[in-house]
Every structure is written in C-alpha cells, then in structure tokens.
C-alpha cells in the first residue's frame, strides 16, 4: 500500500507516469483476498499496538496510539489484509513473542521499554532493508509491515495531518519557490 502512495507521489498530476504495478493488487484471485475475521488475539493486538507507539512515540506531538493508529491497525490486520499478508505478519509477531520469552524470560508487554525496543530492533534486523529508490516492490515481514501501517495510519490521521504536519486544504495559490523554513514541517493536503 505504501508503494501505491509512493507511486501516487511520483505520478505526475497529469497521470503521466503511474506504473502499471499499481494495479497488481486487483489481479490477485478472490479466494486469496477473503478476510478471516477474529484472528487477532488480545495479546497479539496489544503487542501490535505497543509496537506502534514504539515506532511513533509521543514527542512534542502525540504518539501513534494517541492519534488513533490502534483502530487503523485493527482494521487493516483483521479486515483488509489478505490471508497471505496476515500470515507473514503473525509469523513475525509470534517469533518476537517467543524471543521475548527465551531472551528476557517474560511477556513482551511486561518488559521494560528498553527491552521492547531491543526486541523490535532485532525484528528489524531480521528483515532485509528495502530501497524505495529502486522503485521496486518490497513486501517485508512483521517489522516492515507494522512500521508501514503505523506510519500510514499516523500520517493520514487527523493528528498526523494537522498537528504533526501542516494541513492546508485550500492553499489559494502555488509558490514553487516557497522556503521550507517558513513551514518547518511536511504539508498535508
């Protein structure tokens, strides 16, 4: 999905150059796209939510969960994801939970924040880095998925658009030489 956003960003307003792989998602057979509800256990849900706040914590602006990313995660994971995507997500999530027991001898959620961060870092380390400048498809495992979802959920939330970014729905003009220093953050509109 992020790839779609990426391509949208790169696509000229005129529709000049959207790559065809945008339409890939719709070519997947229906059977693989049917959602299996109720697959997210309370623990898995809580861990995913916790990870979202480790990825985007509260700073001078609210955190992911404060911005409503929790609901976004629940929706995407249990409704929107295809079975194959969900499988990858849970495999990585469960691996992290097991590591938490074997390495720290406790539940992920009960660990101190520093240990949770180490666990998430380890999860990141298990996934090969991806290079969006290569403009290729990069699917990723649990870490890439939770990071992608958190970031997308956050930046498209009201908090992410109006507090973290600057939301100007009716700019009124175009200035191609505008200075970044005058806004100091990303545009959202």
């Amino acid at each position, binding site marked *: 999905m*992020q790839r779609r*956003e*990426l391509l*949208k*960003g*790169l696509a*000229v*307003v*005129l*529709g*000049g*150059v*959207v*790559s*065809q*792989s945008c*339409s890939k*998602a719709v070519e*997947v057979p*229906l059977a693989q*796209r049917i959602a299996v509800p109720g697959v997210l256990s309370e623990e898995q849900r809580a861990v995913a939510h916790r990870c979202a706040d*480790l*990825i985007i*914590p509260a*700073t001078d*602006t609210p955190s992911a969960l404060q911005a409503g990313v929790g609901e976004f995660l629940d929706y*995407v994971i249990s409704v*929107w994801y295809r079975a194959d995507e969900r499988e990858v997500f849970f495999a990585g999530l469960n691996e992290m939970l097991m590591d938490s027991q074997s390495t720290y001898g406790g539940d992920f959620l009960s660990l101190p924040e520093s240990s949770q961060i180490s666990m*998430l*870092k380890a999860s*990141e380390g298990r996934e090969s880095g991806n*290079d*969006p400048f290569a*403009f290729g498809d990069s699917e990723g495992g649990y870490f890439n998925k939770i*990071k*992608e979802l958190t*970031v*997308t959920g956050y930046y498209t939330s009201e908090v*992410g*658009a109006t507090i*973290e970014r600057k939301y*100007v*729905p*009716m*700019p*009124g*003009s*175009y*200035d*191609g*030489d*505008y*200075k*970044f220093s005058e*806004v100091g*953050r*990303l*545009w*959202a*509109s």
Partner: protein
Amino acid sequence: MGKLETTQQVDAIVVGSGITGGWAAKELSEKGLKVLMLERGKPLEHGSGYVGEHEPPWERNNKGMRPRELYAEQYNIQSTSYAFDETTRHFWNNDLENPYDFKEEDPFHWLRADVVGGRSLMWARQSYRWSDLDFEANKKEGIGIDWPIRYKDLAPWYSYVEKFIGVSGQAMGLDQLPDGEFQKPMDMNVVERHVAAAITGKFPDRVMTIGRTATLTEPLPGRAACHYCGPCHRGCSTGSYFSSLSSTLPAARATGNFELRANALVESLEYDPDTKRVSAVRVIDTVTGEATRYSAKLIFLCASTVGSTQILLNSTQADSDISFANESGALGRYMMDHTYRAGARGIIPGFEEYYPYGNRPNGIYIPRFRNVNGDDGLGFTRGYGYQGSAGRLSWDTMSKVTPGFGADFKEGLRKPGPWYMSLGGFGEILPYAHNSMALHKSKKDRFGIPQVTFHFEFGENEKRHREDVVKQAVAMLEAAGATRIDPFNTEMVGGAAIHEMGTARMGHDPKQAVLNAHNQAHAASNLFVTDGAAMASSSCVNPSLTYMALTARAVDYAVTQLQAGAI
C-alpha cells in the same frame, strides 16, 4: 420529465454529456435549436455530486485503504486508473454491471464514466493544439488516409473553445505545438526551471514548459480561479477546471432550449435509406428498462470513441448485420491510443531549502522534438512529448528509506526528502486497420445490447519510439544532474492512456471514411459524430481540445446546412 416521442419538440439530439456532448449541446442550443441530451450515466449535480472533494485523509472510507475485493470484482478495469479511488468511484463505470468482452491475452482497457458529465469530471485537463505536422502526416507518409482538414480549418475553433473553457499556458512560438488563447501560465517550481534550463542547454532543439491546462488562473463568468487544492479528479465546485457540469451544460441550460435525460442508454439508430437520414434514436431507460424512440432533425453522437462506434455498429439495417454507416468498412477499425508509461525519473540533488506551497494541478510539458523537420533517421516516424513534474519526496517514501523507529525517526520524517523529477512520454500510435473494436457475436449486456470486444496491438513504430522515449528521458535527467535515475518502460495495454480514438474516421472518400470533413456521416446527412471516433491519426498530444474544436465547428456547419435546407 415528460416523454418526448415526437419530432416536433426536439430539433437536435445529443448523445453523451461528456466533453464533446457538452460542447454540442451548448452550441446547438445557443443557435436556437431545441436540444435533448441523452446520457446513459446516472444524474450528477455540479458541486453536491463531488462527494470526495476536499475530503480530509482521516475521514475516508475503509480508513483510507482501497477496498481491494470490491475493486477486483466490480471495477477491475476502472481501478487501473490513477484517478480511481474511493473519492471518485461514483463517477466511474461498474465493470461487473456494464461489462465488455475482455481478453487476458489481448487486453484493452476501456476506461469510462457512468455519470452526467462523463470523463470531463476526471480528466487531467491537459490541452494542446494539433499542428499541420499532425494533419499532413498521413498523406505525406502514405499511412492511413489523408485528413480532410488542415490546421487553418480548425485554428479559429481552437481559439473559440479555449476562450470559453479557459486554458492557462505559456506561448512558445513553436510550429509543432501552436500557441493558443492562454490565460496566464502556472509557475514551474525551482527545480523544474533548473531542469528546463539544463535540457535546453544540452539539447538546443528541446524545451520544457509549464503544462497547458484547462484550469483557470483567471476567473471566467461563474467560475473562480483555481485555489490549488488538488487533486482535481474528485470534482471542483468552484468550476476552476473545465468540465461539462461547470461550463458547457450551464451555458446550454441558460438558453432555455436544453433538456437532459440521464439514465438514458442509446441502443442504436434507425436509418431511412430513402432519405439517407437517421429517422430515430432507440433509447433504453437504465433504471426501468423501458424503451423509447426519439427523432430529431439533427443527431450528434458524442458518446466517446467506443460509445459512439458501438451505437453505429449496432445500427444495422433490415436483413443485414452491417451498419448503415459502414459502407467504407472502416467503422470500428483504425483504432488508436497513445503510448504511455515509458520514461524515467531520478533524484535532483540540492535545492533543499525549497518546498513548494499549494497543489498545482498541472505539470510540465516537453513538446515533440523528433521528426519535426523531416525524418530524423531514428527508425521510427512521428513522435512523442513528455509530461512530468518535480517535487519533494514525502513521508510515504522517506519512511521506507529511513531505518529505525522512535523519536529520532519521527523527527527525521518531519523534513521533506530530496527532490525528484519524472518524465513520462505520450507517443503517437499509427492507425492500423487491425486495431479494432467490434460487437461480440453472442455476449450481451443486461439490456440485450451486444458487448464490445477489442483487438489492439502495438507495432514496430511504437516499440521503437518508446525505446527512444526512455533513452532521451534518461539523457535529459542526466543533463540536469539527476542521480539514481530509474528508467521505466512498462508493458503497454491499448486504451490505458485513455486517449482511445479512431474507429469512424473522417475522410473525403465515402469508400474509405465514415465521416466527411465536417464530422457528418457520409451515409446520413443529419448524423454527426464529433468525439474521438472521428480521428484519422492520433498526434502525440492529449486529444480532447481537438475533439471540442471539431465539435463546435461541426455544429456551426450542421446548423448552417439545416437553415439552408440542405439537411
């Protein structure tokens, strides 16, 4: 709306309410004719119909995620467009409800609207004139048939149309891309100006200019100048870009001579071989299924290239399965589009203090520079132009290249990423007889109308010019100092550029062409086809401005002929 089954009440019928239908209705009604417009799509009101306009990202359906199952089942073709999403879906055709015969091994993407206003709602508004380089090419090269008109025939009509729709752009004095009646141009941003200078510095015969777009930089009656909210394809309630709903339909309504019937699908035309006229238009109400017949002195088919030709192909005479309009055998053939999805993009280092303000609904244009002064000897004929833009990468991309997570990660994403520049070519496709649409022998739609089936392939000329499109895009980006240049040349699919045209071409000879020099059917004096079906070649520029000019010109001719008693 009352039933209008008699000839007396209507002088002219216009089929389709999109870009060309709107123009036909405006012109006919302003000339005093009583006009009935028939549109298969659902009713849609200017303003209130644009439910996705200015919708904040956090209020979107499905938490902003594309409902993939729904799209795959019901919008498998339409959802391939960049302009299709939950903010615009209500404008588009439902492919499950209104299918055509789609073959995986011979794909054609028929992208179409299903509302009043047609694709004038979602179009990207790029508006360029053709030149004699285009109109003379078929004759010079012996490809297809000669155009029965030249630039001078259309030039006054281009001006007429541009003044009404409002086209902003920069005059350049180029023969291959004639200037128009421009409102003040939009600005190129700092990086686009850098790239433009670098391109002309390295390649003196190439220029990069701001796109010419039917988007207002100065107000027109009833329409405000653009407020740079973008994206426009969700609709624009200030009428700042040209659409039928914002512009031509209100003008037609203002005459008191105009009536619109939505949900009115034209099935076929009835033909009287004795008078050589269309005697009636057969219509099916898409809600009730009820059938009606209308007749009128003039019939304008403006149902889009495929829509109009489908109607003509389905208009067979008694005891025959051949359309009355197909004496030439050209009906449904010589279909064209543009090549698309080839080019390159790259990162432009520097300029980091700049971050453009506002969503400019327009990009840049590099006019054709190949084979402009004779054959350049590159192994292909005709040419291509580029569209593109420069901008800064944002959180969506930067979050992927920024490793890690946490407070620093969050802080890092607050700054925009580097500048990118993208260049995508639109190239001319030659008119080949085998590129065609026909009516399927057995498959019918829910109203019993034969489904359209397509055959579309790309020739050597298209493949060769696309290689050059990619090569030159890379060379120009290199000249501009770009790094991480990424050439792209994705698989071509007919129709994907949404510039489908041809299939009822204009030409002097009734044995070769369906329409004459005034878009009038050779077979029926009261029938005019003024959408993309009329095209005898495709140029490489976006076509809709030319369709509009042809439409206004055809109406002028038709009404003159009608008044002179010649129709």
